[in-house]
C-alpha cells in the first residue's frame, strides 16, 4: 500500500511539477490548446449560439458576409456560421471516435506482440506490415464503396485503417518495459499476464499514446473532410466542413466565402491539434525537442 501511494505521488508530481510547467512555457503548444478548447466549446454550445443550420430561405441565398450573417449564406440561404459550428460537432465526433477505435486496436495488438514476442509478435507485426502497404486512402475508399456512407461507418473505417502506427509504438514500449524489474516483481507476486499487461506495463506507455492520439485526431479530421468533399463521407443535409466545400466548388469564382470559411475551419482545428500534440511530446521528453 505504502509503495503504491509513493508511486502515485511520484506520478502526480511528474504531471504537476514537470510536464505542466514545460507545456505552459511552450507558446506554440498553448496556442494549439486555445484553438482546440475554443473549437470544442463552440461546437458544444452551437445550439445556444447560432440559428438552425438547416433553415432554408431561398430569398436569402448566396448573401455575402454581413452583420446579420457574419460568414454569409449558402446556395439555399442557410447560415454558413451555423453550419460551420454544427459541422464542427461532426468533425470532432468523428475525430475522437475514430482515434478511440484506432488506439484501442493498436494498443491491444501492440501489447500482445510486445509482451509475448516470438510467433505472436511475428504474426501481428507481419499483419501490420501488410496493412501499411495499402495506401490508406485506397483502403478506406474501397470499403466505403460497399457501405452506406454514414458518420458511424466513416468513424469505424478511419479507425480500422489507422491503428498500425499505434501498434508499432506500443509494441516498442512493451519490448523495453517487459524486461524491467517491476514486471519481474509483479510476476513473482503471482500476477497473471492480463494484469501485468494492462495494469503494470500499459500505464507506463501512456505518454507516447497520448501524443499519437492527439496527432491522430488531426489526421482523422482531415480524412473525414476529404471523404465528405468527395461525396462519400458525411452526407448532406448534415453539415460537415468537407461537404460544405462541395457547394464551395460549385460556386467557385462567385461566392468566395463558401469555399474560404469551411476550409479555414479545418485548417485551424487540425493546426490546433498538431501544435498541442507536438507540445505534449516536447513536454514529456525535452530531449526529443527538434
Amino acid at each position, binding site marked *: 500500500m505504502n509503495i503504491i501511494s509513493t508511486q502515485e505521488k511520484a506520478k502526480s508530481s511528474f504531471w504537476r511539477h514537470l510536464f505542466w510547467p514545460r507545456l505552459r512555457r511552450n507558446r506554440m503548444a498553448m496556442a494549439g490548446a486555445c484553438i482546440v478548447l475554443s473549437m470544442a466549446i463552440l461546437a458544444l454550445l452551437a445550439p445556444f449560439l447560432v440559428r438552425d443550420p438547416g433553415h432554408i430561405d431561398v430569398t436569402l441565398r448566396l448573401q455575402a458576409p454581413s452583420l446579420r450573417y457574419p460568414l454569409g449564406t449558402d446556395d439555399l440561404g442557410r447560415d454558413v456560421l451555423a453550419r460551420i459550428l454544427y459541422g464542427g460537432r461532426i468533425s470532432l465526433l468523428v475525430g475522437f471516435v475514430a482515434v478511440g477505435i484506432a488506439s484501442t486496436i493498436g494498443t491491444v495488438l501492440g501489447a500482445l506482440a510486445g509482451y509475448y514476442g516470438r510467433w505472436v509478435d511475428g504474426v501481428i507485426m507481419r499483419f501490420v506490415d501488410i496493412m501499411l502497404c*495499402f495506401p490508406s486512402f485506397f483502403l478506406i475508399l*474501397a*470499403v466505403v464503396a460497399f457501405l452506406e456512407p454514414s458518420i458511424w461507418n466513416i468513424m469505424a473505417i478511419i479507425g480500422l485503417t489507422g491503428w498500425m502506427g499505434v501498434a508499432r509504438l506500443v509494441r516498442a514500449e512493451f519490448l523495453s518495459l517487459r524486461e524491467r524489474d517491476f514486471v519481474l516483481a509483479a510476476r513473482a507476486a503471482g500476477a497473471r499476464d492480463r494484469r501485468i499487461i494492462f495494469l503494470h506495463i500499459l500505464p507506463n506507455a501512456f505518454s507516447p499514446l497520448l501524443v499519437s492520439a492527439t496527432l491522430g485526431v488531426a489526421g482523422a479530421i482531415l480524412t473525414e473532410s476529404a471523404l465528405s468533399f468527395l461525396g462519400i463521407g458525411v452526407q448532406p443535409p448534415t453539415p460537415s466542413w468537407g461537404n460544405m466545400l462541395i457547394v464551395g466548388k460549385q460556386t467557385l469564382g462567385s461566392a468566395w466565402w463558401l469555399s474560404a470559411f*469551411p476550409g479555414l475551419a*479545418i485548417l485551424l482545428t487540425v493546426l490546433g491539434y498538431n501544435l498541442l500534440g507536438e507540445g505534449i511530446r516536447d513536454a514529456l521528453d525535452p530531449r526529443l525537442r527538434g
Partner: protein
Amino acid sequence: MVPLLLGITLVSFVVIHLAPGEPTDLQTQLNPEISAELQQRLRAQYDLDRPLLVQYGKWLGRLVRLDFGDSFSQDRRPVTAKIAERLPITILINVLSISLILAVAVPVGILAAVRRNSPFDRLTTLLVFIGFATPSFWLALLLMDLLGVRYGLLPVVGLKSLGYDYLSFPGRVLDILRHLVLPVFVSAFGGLAGFSRYMRANMLEVIRQDYILTARAKGLTERRVIGHHALRNALLPVITILGLSVPGLIGGSVIFETIFAIPGMGKLFYDGVMMRDYPLIMGILVIGAILTLIGNLLADLGYALADPRIRRG
C-alpha cells in the same frame, strides 16, 4: 516479399467480401427488368455462388497471370488494360512532385537547421505547421479559384486543352506541362512541410556529431563542413522516408486527380468506387500495394548504394 504479396491479396479480397451486398447488386437489384434466372447466371459468371476460399483461389490464380478480370463498366474491358493506360500519368505526377519536394525541402531544412532559431527557422517552422494542417483539396480549390478562374493564368481541368491535337510537338509538351503545374504543386504541398521538418531534424542531429567538430577543427570552411561532411549523412534517412511516403502520395492522387479531372489511376479508382466496379477496385487495391512494396524496395536499394557501411556489411 512473397508472403507480403500473398498477405496483400488476402487483405484486398477479405476487405471487399466482408462488406455487405454483392458486387453484382448494382446490375441486379437496381435493374427491375432483370430476371431471377439471369441474376443466377451473373452470379455464376463471377463465381459468387462458390465458397469464399474457392473464389479466392481462382482469383489468385488469375492474378498470378496479371489477369484482374473484366471491368463491370459499360466498356467491359480488362482491368489490366484500364490500369495500364492510367498508371503512367499517376506515376509521372508523383515523380514530379517528389522531385519538387526534394528540390525545395532539402535546402530549406538544411538552412533552418544551420541557422537554428533565426527568423528564417521560425518562419519555416510556422509554415510547416500550416502546411501540415492545410487540406489538399481545399488548397486545390483556392488555387483553381485564384489562378484559374479569376486570373486565367493556368488551366484547371484535365491534362490537355481542347485544341491539343492541332498543336505542334513543343506546343503539346508545353500544354501538358501547363496542365500539370497545379496538380503537381497540390500533391507536393503536404510532403514539402513534412520533408523540410524531417531534413531539419536530421541535420541538427548530424551537426552535433564528433566528426563535424573534427572537420571544423581541421579548419575546413563552414561551407565544406555543411555541404560535404554533414549533408551526406543527413540525407541518408531521407531515402527511407521517401520509400515510406509512396503510399501516402498514391492515396492522395485520388483527391487531386478527382478535383482536377486528371485521367490517372486515382480518378479511375474513384470512378470505380462510385460505380461499384468490383474487379477494378480489387485490381487497383492490389496494384497500389505492390507499388508501395516497389517503393520500399527502391528505398532499400538506394540506401545500400548511398551508404558504404551497408553496401559492404
